[in-house]
């Protein structure tokens, strides 16, 4: 048995030993410093330049990467044209590149050049639609490769492509925008299902799958061996139960570690003993049913419909202690509370793809919340319709930017001068 005082001394020494850290590489730090100041300069210049008409007020977050490319499109066009003449094979090969591939930069430059050379609104829209489609396909390929780092980049690129689409519609004149909106609607709707599939199970599986599978295979060794089972150890720590209890469920009752974790999560959320949770699971057959029975998640539109394994995996995040990685990412990216996203996801049963588009749309001048936008999308059937209804796209350029929206139930409102933006409380900040 180790003496407590001795252990404290050792802990102190251990912590002391961690204080020294290697200094950052001076060259890299200097380069990062310079890049930071250069970006700041560029942003200051943008802030000082005259305000862009129409859609630059918060509707669909700007697409920085794509916008920058637009700015240098002329230069790139010349370069790419030269390359087309000399290195056509490379450009052809680059067409199938995904983020992380060496030729991806070439692929992007070619696309920018194509955009720079396209002028008719319909052609630009079609090109942007095909680029958004390509970004989504890249994300799917990266998900299949389980390359999560580049998957995030591909999803960001997809978001940027959709932003560009909407911005293009925003600058089209009224007639053009009205005729182009249905095409946008159809495309975005078709993306949504794929996006939800992409954001959901793929990431959840990548997050929870691999390591655990290996452990499960080797798991039975832990029932006879002296080494602690790492997952059981983690669960015991996280949920305040004993390691022996967990190994009892695992070794004698035959539950997998994943099931045990779900049971512990459910027990923590409801106060039911873990054994009763297991009994319910056996009785009802699936975790989705257990959580619905216990009122932890909203019921589906069709109660008779059984939840798929993927849906159960997803809904585990609704009752679990672990944050949903995609929801967390959306919260960080769009600066909204993680809890709000999970409320829309768990109670509203909106897909993460839909939530992403609602957040991209952002709060409009009328103060519609993302939740209201999601409801509008459900009611109206497509994001294009929502954006048009909100006056974010398809508004003729000669109308004043802040013309109030006309709703049948309400009398026409006068143009309001919006007070200066209130300061948000520090706590809410989630970059």
């Amino acid at each position, binding site marked *: 048995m180790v003496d407590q005082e001795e252990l404290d001394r050792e802990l102190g020494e251990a912590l002391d030993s*961690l204080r020294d850290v290697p200094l950052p590489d001076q060259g890299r730090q200097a380069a990062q410093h310079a890049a930071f100041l250069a970006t700041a300069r560029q942003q200051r210049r943008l802030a000082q330049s005259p305000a862009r008409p129409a859609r630059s007020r918060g509707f669909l977050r700007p697409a920085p990467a794509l916008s920058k490319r637009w700015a240098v499109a002329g230069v790139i066009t010349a370069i790419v044209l030269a390359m087309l003449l000399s290195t056509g094979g490379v450009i052809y090969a680059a067409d199938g590149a995904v983020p992380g591939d060496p030729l991806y930069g070439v692929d992007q430059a070619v696309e920018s050049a194509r955009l720079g050379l396209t002028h008719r609104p319909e052609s630009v829209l079609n090109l942007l639609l095909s680029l958004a489609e390509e970004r989504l396909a890249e994300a799917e390929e990266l998900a299949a490769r389980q390359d999560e780092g580049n998957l995030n980049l591909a999803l960001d690129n997809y978001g940027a492509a959709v932003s560009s689409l909407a911005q293009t519609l925003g600058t089209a004149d009224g007639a053009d925008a009205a005729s182009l909106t249905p095409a946008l609607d159809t495309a975005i709707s078709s993306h949504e299902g794929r996006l939800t599939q992409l954001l959901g199970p793929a990431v959840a599986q990548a997050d929870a799958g691999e*390591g655990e599978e290996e452990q499960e295979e080797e798991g039975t060794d832990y029932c006879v061996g002296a080494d602690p089972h790492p997952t059981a150890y983690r669960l015991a720590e996280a949920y305040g139960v004993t390691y022996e209890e967990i190994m009892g469920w695992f070794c004698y009752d035959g539950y997998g570690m994943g099931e045990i974790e779900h049971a512990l999560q459910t027990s923590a959320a409801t106060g039911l003993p873990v054994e009763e949770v297991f009994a319910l699971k056996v009785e009802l057959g699936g975790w989705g049913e257990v959580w619905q029975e216990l009122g932890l998640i909203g019921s589906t539109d069709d109660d008779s419909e059984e939840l798929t394994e993927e849906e159960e995996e997803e809904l585990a995040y609704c009752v679990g202690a672990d944050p949903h990685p995609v929801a967390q990412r959306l919260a960080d990216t769009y600066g909204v509370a993680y809890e709000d996203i999970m409320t829309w996801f768990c109670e509203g049963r909106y897909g993460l793809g839909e939530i992403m588009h609602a957040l991209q749309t952002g709060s409009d001048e009328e103060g519609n919340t993302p939740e209201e936008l999601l409801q509008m999308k459900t009611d109206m059937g497509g994001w294009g319709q929502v954006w048009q209804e909100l006056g974010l796209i398809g508004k003729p350029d000669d109308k004043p930017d802040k013309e109030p929206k006309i709703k049948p139930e309400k009398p026409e409102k006068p143009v309001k001068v919006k007070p200066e933006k209130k300061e948000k409380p520090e706590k809410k900040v989630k970059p």
Partner: protein
Amino acid sequence: MVEEQALLRGARELDEPALNAIFETYYPLLYRYVYHHIRHQTTAEDLTAEVFSRMLEQLSQGDGPRQYLKAWLYRVAHNLVIDHTRRQVHRDHDPLDEGIVSTGHDVEMEVHNAILQWQAAAALQKLTPMQRAVIILKYLEGYSNAEIAPILELSVGAVKALQHRGLASMRRYLAHARESGGE
């Protein structure tokens, strides 16, 4: 504090000297914090630079830090670390590889220190992200509980509880390592 407010005002106007001072002042602190979490130099440098990039992005949208610049920057760093850790958790990657810092003593001492550092880093990795954050900020970076609370958006009581549980968990790990001959 006064200086922090001045820097913050300058940063909101994208004033270059203010942004320059912010980078120079906080980069080393944030780098240390990130490094303690992931123990990989290049990644720590990249994530630290990303903190400043996020700050610019937020400032240009009229968001970003309002009152407490340092706490805000640490929070961003913390969120980036969490994101990074989630992405790395199932990869074949040993974050402790680069974690051993030579202290320049004799060989026996070097070995002792290397083992100690390895065990300490491993014990730290066993903690939950929030416990780890508290232990790092308190014991490795020297912040008080009152300073840690706004960084992690917790009450002082919650910080104390995390600290208590984190230290207990590290003690258990070290005791286990000792008993199984890892000393």
